[in-house]
């Protein structure tokens, strides 16, 4: 009961400011009503420590932005808490919980079922399926997905109809209704981001985790994406999203967490965290003293980064060819 009342109340900016005003603006500070708590997560690739987070809490019902320069370990951190990767510190003090339930040993699909749904930096649209089918897959607990029941339509046709209505409503909201019969692979990069977000919402998540939702999206669409994210929060969904350009997120995030070189370096409200010296160092220091001939560039983490960039460029090229 209390959950819904706080959520409703948080549509008001003043209420959110008031809620967060009591929180210390420093890394790992405790929140009044944390939905996600993370302790002691370390992930190493070879000799490189990609993520080393001592403690982090994410407040329920607001938009939290996780920002940091390229290679700060944001995506790896996302992978770790959503079950797509295992921390090196697993079994040695690594502990994280979502909405009261421990997730230390939970598989990615169970994490999603528990109400924490994520999207990906490189969108994972199911290309050779229609937009509508993509959406339908987002719904949870479908009787028709049970092999024993799927051959007998009466078991699932009523539920299917409900799911369909919900999907259509969400597609309408995300301006994808006209595309519902198209293959997801034929959508533009921005539309795919929208589709992925809409698909994630099919499961009515308690918290949605967006990995660079603005990457590769044209500026016109960026505004509407930001609008969607805000309206999600206003409806009571907790939002955690990753972004490397802090200016983009400035006016929509209620709280900002800054990562650099795998560690949390700062936390605070959007307008004040930008002036934090640790943050400025993180952003300027990430690139200004890097020698391109440096061996560290060939580390796994940088390789991954490069791979991702190459893949992103390829995706863009493909898109250009298509249009």
């Amino acid at each position: 009961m209390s959950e819904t009342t706080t959520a409703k109340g948080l549509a008001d900016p003043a209420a959110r400011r008031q809620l967060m005003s009591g929180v210390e603006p420093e890394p790992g500070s405790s929140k009044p009503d944390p939905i996600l708590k993370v302790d002691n997560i370390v992930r190493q690739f070879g000799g490189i420590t990609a993520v080393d987070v001592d403690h982090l809490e994410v407040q329920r019902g607001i938009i939290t932005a996780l920002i940091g320069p390229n290679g700060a370990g944001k995506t790896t951190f996302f992978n770790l808490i959503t079950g797509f990767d295992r921390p090196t510190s697993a079994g040695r003090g690594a502990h994280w919980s979502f909405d009261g339930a421990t997730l230390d040993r939970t598989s990615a699909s169970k994490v999603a079922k528990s109400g924490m749904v994520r999207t990906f930096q490189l969108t994972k649209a199911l290309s050779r399926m229609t937009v509508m089918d993509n959406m339908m897959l987002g719904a949870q607990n479908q009787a028709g997905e049970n092999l024993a029941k799927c051959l007998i339509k009466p078991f699932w046709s009523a539920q299917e109809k409900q799911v369909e209505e919900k999907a259509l409503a969400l597609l309408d909201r995300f301006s994808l209704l006209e595309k519902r019969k198209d293959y997801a692979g034929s959508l533009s990069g921005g539309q795919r981001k929208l589709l992925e977000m809409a698909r994630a919402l099919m499961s009515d998540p308690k918290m949605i985790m967006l990995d660079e939702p603005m990457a590769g999206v044209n500026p016109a669409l960026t505004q509407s994406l930001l609008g969607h994210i805000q309206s999600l929060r206003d409806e009571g969904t907790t939002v955690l999203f990753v972004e490397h350009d802090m200016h983009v997120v400035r006016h929509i995030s209620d709280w900002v967490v800054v990562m650099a070189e795998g560690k949390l370096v700062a936390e605070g409200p959007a307008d004040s965290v930008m002036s934090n010296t640790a943050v400025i160092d993180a952003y300027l220091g990430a690139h200004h003293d890097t020698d391109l001939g440096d061996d560290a560039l060939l580390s796994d983490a940088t390789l991954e980064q490069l791979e991702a960039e190459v893949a992103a460029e390829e995706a863009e090229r493909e898109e250009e060819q298509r249009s």
Partner: protein
Amino acid sequence: MDDIQGILNAMMRTAVDPQTAAVAIAVIGLNIHFGYTGLINIGQSAFMLLGAYGFAISITQGWPLPVAILVGLAVAFVFALVLGVPTLKLRGDYLAIVTISAAEIIRYVGRSGGYESLSNLTNAAQGIAGSQYRTPFTDLSPFPTGTTQLLPFNYLDVAGGSTVVRLLGWLVVVAAIWTAVRIGRRKVGLEGSTRTLAMVGLTALVVVLLFFLAPVSQRNTGVNGWWFTVVAWILVGISLIIVLGLTRSPWGRALKGVREDEDAMRSLGKNVFAIKMQALIIGGLFGAIGGMMYVLPAAVQPDALGRSITFFAYTALLLGGAATIWGPVLGSLIFFVGRVFLIGVANTYLSSDDYLNIMNGQQTSQFAFIIVGVALMLLVIFRPQGILGDKRELRFNV
């Protein structure tokens, strides 16, 4: 024209052959693996072989027919579990290597004479003769003894079998198939029941015309007789209906989701491992049924159900169109009938003093297989969606 009619008759015999139907069923299973779920199973022959062994050995041990069928299915089920548990969590190409290796292990064990207790059951490399397990099935035949020709009324009864009538008939067949394929690929603006009706009507027309133009005469009950043919094709029909139901359900949707992106499916809370395992089992069971049907008119021979049959299954699947309902059946028909056509043409025109004599009798069948191999390559390169597949689907490679 007699040469051509001879080739056509041979093609029709192959088209109704229960073994063609049997492979079609196995390809339907492979379609669930590869077409819908994206599992690269290169060991479909093992499911067939295990189904065949389970069935044949049960009967030679004196168990009743239904039990034998269940044993065949159970063996394939267990094999799918054993194969799936370790590999379905690994990357796709590992499944490929493990399935083909496991299929070879099954074949080696089947043909081995190393352990008496085993070879007493399997009869090692010689295999189990069909006569040892066929009787309970043959006894079920409701057909009277004798021979039946389909159709009794055929081209010979019209204008004395004149060439013009036959040519005209074939023109109609080709036109009907072309139209059906266009409807199948949604190029013709028919929807709903009209579309189904048109498809059924055209199919019926083609079948009747084919039997009219190249009548097939078989014994009613004996090996490879009509009883075998009818049961085999009814099984194909049932398999198609099951696959249609499965793939149109949310479960089928989940299969395709796994094919497209496993991580995306995990992020949506789907148990990817369970879905893949279910697909592997279901497709494997179809393989086992195909295997049982395949050996009924022949013998259980480990070497006859080896890698080549898996490769042929892939050719048939890609020919018809992966991830389509009718693709496996159409592909199997075209594959086997096409091979007979190639061998027939080579025998008649390339290995005869009447025409060209550039190859000997054995080379004609090898020639046909060379063409099959090249055709498989060209098909994948230039028309990866097969005959029935949707070109749009293939544009977005994963």
